């Protein structure tokens, strides 16, 4: 019982539903001072929803929130912030049109008064320096001009920053999804430092080793319920996956080196640095630190291979977006329409859409890739982030395009799904499809036949076969930096 008295935040029996969807079905959860709680679960398990409850953005239909032993009846965003609850949301939530300093002003409501710019700059710079030493981000820059990784860094630093009310509980909802390994490392180290000074953290991630090494206690959620809760030592990777309810599959293995050099060349591009080429049936990885030109190459390949003026019967490339808000989902549409938009050419006759075939194909892919929804005619935004990502995958794979471009597409996708998708990719590649895959996760890069490593907008290294391993990639990523 004194658990509750000491807890920074204690949620009791929270229930939330969105229409027919039970997002939370009686969740009880405590966060003690000086503790990092890991929160894992499949896509749509309700993690982000419990986050909304804790940060005051969502009032549970049933259940209560207490803090420091005091039950809070009128709990809201401002009450949460006053108690030092801070949040890094799953989707980036800075104002892209404002500078970093101005965003700091927005985040800290009580920062006003004469000379706030100077104070805000000091606050955010101090914090950036603390979390990401050597970050090189100028606080007067506009957020829209930053790369996605830089934005995520700013947002993380913002959550740890102190402008009067010190942060006591920082919630990190998949904060590392756009960070490369070294930046993620820096952040995790900072989390440990923060914990050591008595702060609390709720850490959500689908990258299980991060959770395992950083969290003190791990809570596993499934379908809106807490299904397991143990100290971190009580879990290993395998056990965690099992607790999440995914049938534990074997670790992704390096593909057996296939004889690829004889396959016909399907795509080549004169990028900066080494030239880029792809053969039929290859899985090609684009690696390197985040934001060093990988996405640009994908966009250039897409632009070069697809017309903007005339419709094409046989698309040559298709694209899986990572930044789904920006260039992925169509928010007004149903899941089905979001899925079918890229393959309408095959689902129509003389420009007329064949509704039945669309339905059938949609149902087929819903099953194949396990999109969690009662009805493909629901709006796409009713899906959790990971499930939206699956829809985008299905959209691309359902086309006949021989080349699939993937822009870090596994952001926010849970382990089970990832395994399924990896399997599909391998299967499709065996059938002759080419995948060009930018990823910030080493595990994924290792799945590739061949890897191009990027550094400052140019391809610096090409690795193939057995040479595709962590050591080589990291070495190539930092090549040229005085180390």
């Amino acid at each position, binding site marked *: 019982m004194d658990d509750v008295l000491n807890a920074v935040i204690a949620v009791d029996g929270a229930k939330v539903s969105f229409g027919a969807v039970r997002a939370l079905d009686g969740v009880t959860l405590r966060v003690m001072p000086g503790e990092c709680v890991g929160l894992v679960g499949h896509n749509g398990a309700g993690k982000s929803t419990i986050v909304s409850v804790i940060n005051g953005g969502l009032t549970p239909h049933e259940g209560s929130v207490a803090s420091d032993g005091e039950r809070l009846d009128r709990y809201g965003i401002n009450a949460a912030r006053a108690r030092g609850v801070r949040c890094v949301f799953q989707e980036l939530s800075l104002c892209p049109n404002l500078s970093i300093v101005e965003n700091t002003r927005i985040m800290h409501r009580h920062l006003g008064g004469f000379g706030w710019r100077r104070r805000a700059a000091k606050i955010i710079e101090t914090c950036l320096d603390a979390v990401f030493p050597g970050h090189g981000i100028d606080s007067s820059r506009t957020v829209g001009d930053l790369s996605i990784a830089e934005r995520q860094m700013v947002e993380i630093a913002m959550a740890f920053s102190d402008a009067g009310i010190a942060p006591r509980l920082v919630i990190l909802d998949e904060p590392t999804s756009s960070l490369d390994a070294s930046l993620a490392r820096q952040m995790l180290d900072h989390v440990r430092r923060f914990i050591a000074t008595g702060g609390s953290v709720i850490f959500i991630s689908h990258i299980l080793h991060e959770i395992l090494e950083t969290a003190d206690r791990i809570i596993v959620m499934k379908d809106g319920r807490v299904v397991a809760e143990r100290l971190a030592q009580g879990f290993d990777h395998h056990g965690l996956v099992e607790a999440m309810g995914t049938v534990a599959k074997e670790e992704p293995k390096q593909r057996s080196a296939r004889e690829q050099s004889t396959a016909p060349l399907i795509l080549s591009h004169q990028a900066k640095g080494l030239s880029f080429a792809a053969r039929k049936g290859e899985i090609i990885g684009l690696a390197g630190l985040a934001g060093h030109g990988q996405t640009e190459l994908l966009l250039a390949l897409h632009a070069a291979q697809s017309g903007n003026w005339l419709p094409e019967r046989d698309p040559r490339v298709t694209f899986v977006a990572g930044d789904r808000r920006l*260039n992925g989902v169509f928010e007004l*549409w149903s899941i089905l329409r979001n899925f079918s938009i890229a393959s309408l050419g095959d689902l129509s006759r003389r420009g007329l859409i064949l509704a039945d075939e669309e339905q059938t194909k949609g149902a087929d892919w819903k099953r194949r890739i396990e999109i969690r929804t009662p009805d493909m005619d629901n709006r796409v935004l009713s899906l959790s982030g990971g499930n939206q990502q699956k829809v985008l995958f299905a959209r691309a794979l359902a086309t006949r395009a021989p080349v699939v471009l993937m822009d870090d597409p596994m952001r926010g996708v849970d382990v089970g799904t990832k395994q399924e998708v990896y399997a599909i990719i391998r299967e499709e590649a065996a059938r002759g499809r080419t995948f060009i895959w930018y990823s910030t996760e080493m595990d994924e890069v290792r799945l590739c036949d061949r890897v191009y490593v990027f550094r400052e907008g140019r391809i610096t290294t090409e690795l193939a076969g057995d040479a595709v391993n962590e050591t080589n990639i990291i070495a190539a990523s930092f090549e040229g930096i005085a180390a």
Partner: protein
Amino acid sequence: MTPLLRLFGKPWIWSWLAAFIVWFLTIMVTLGASTLGLSQAALTFAAFSVIVGIGQMFVITLGPGNIDLSVPATMTLAGTVALKLMNVENGMILPGLLVSIVIGFVVGLGNYALIKALRIPPIIATLSMSFIVQSAAIWTNRGLRIKPPSVLAEFTTSHTLGVPNVAIVALLISLLAWFLLEKTIYGRWISAIGQSMPAARMAGIPVDGTRFVTYLFCAVLASVAGYLLACFSGGAALNMGSEYLLMSIAVVVIGGTAVAGGDSNVPGIWGASLFMFLVVSMLNTYGLGAGIRLIMTGLIIISVIMLAGGRRAGMR
């Protein structure tokens, strides 16, 4: 959900409801004696708003910032040039129609060229274009009024089974528009572009081609409306389109099409067009002064959107 409730969920129902109420209030002044006359007049004049409104709706569906302000000037140019070409000869009706369609093509082409090549926001590009088109109209005939060929004048002003012929034309165009939007790939494409242009591009949609066709379509519909209007009102005038600038936008948005793009709706255009005509008739019939009349029109528009818009927000 019961069927009735579902009906109230449709964004277009409110404009229809408003049109009906206003219609009812107007005919009650004469205790129903004016029913037929008023209904026919409403259908006739709504037809022109419907035709230009549909074009405008396609453009607005392309997403925020997309709008075609060159509609009135295009109507004027098409009407004046076509009537000048036909020069009261019945044999020239088809060439006249063709020429007005070509004019629509050229204006649409110009609009999209400005938008695309010079990256000018559509609202400014089409405004600039409209000035040029208006000048061209002045230059070609300096306000000359030529009568339409008799067959055409007869056709546009008479009825078939009590329904005005222009309304039938507008209905056919509406059906075509509905079909395009709901059943074809093109309809999906413009809706997708309206929701997110980058996403549409990455989904392999030929974005430029689609937008181009849409601007063409809008300009062509405007020129056809100009052609019909000039014949209907017995000659083209240099200012004949000016009313349709606000009108074409108003009927689209009152009709329940999302102003933010991506979501369009054809029945609403009819409801809104009828409403816009009937509300002026009603206020005229009740003998209200211009000031009061304007205020009432504004308040009614706002109430319609409050009912419709508020509903949709709740539906989500």
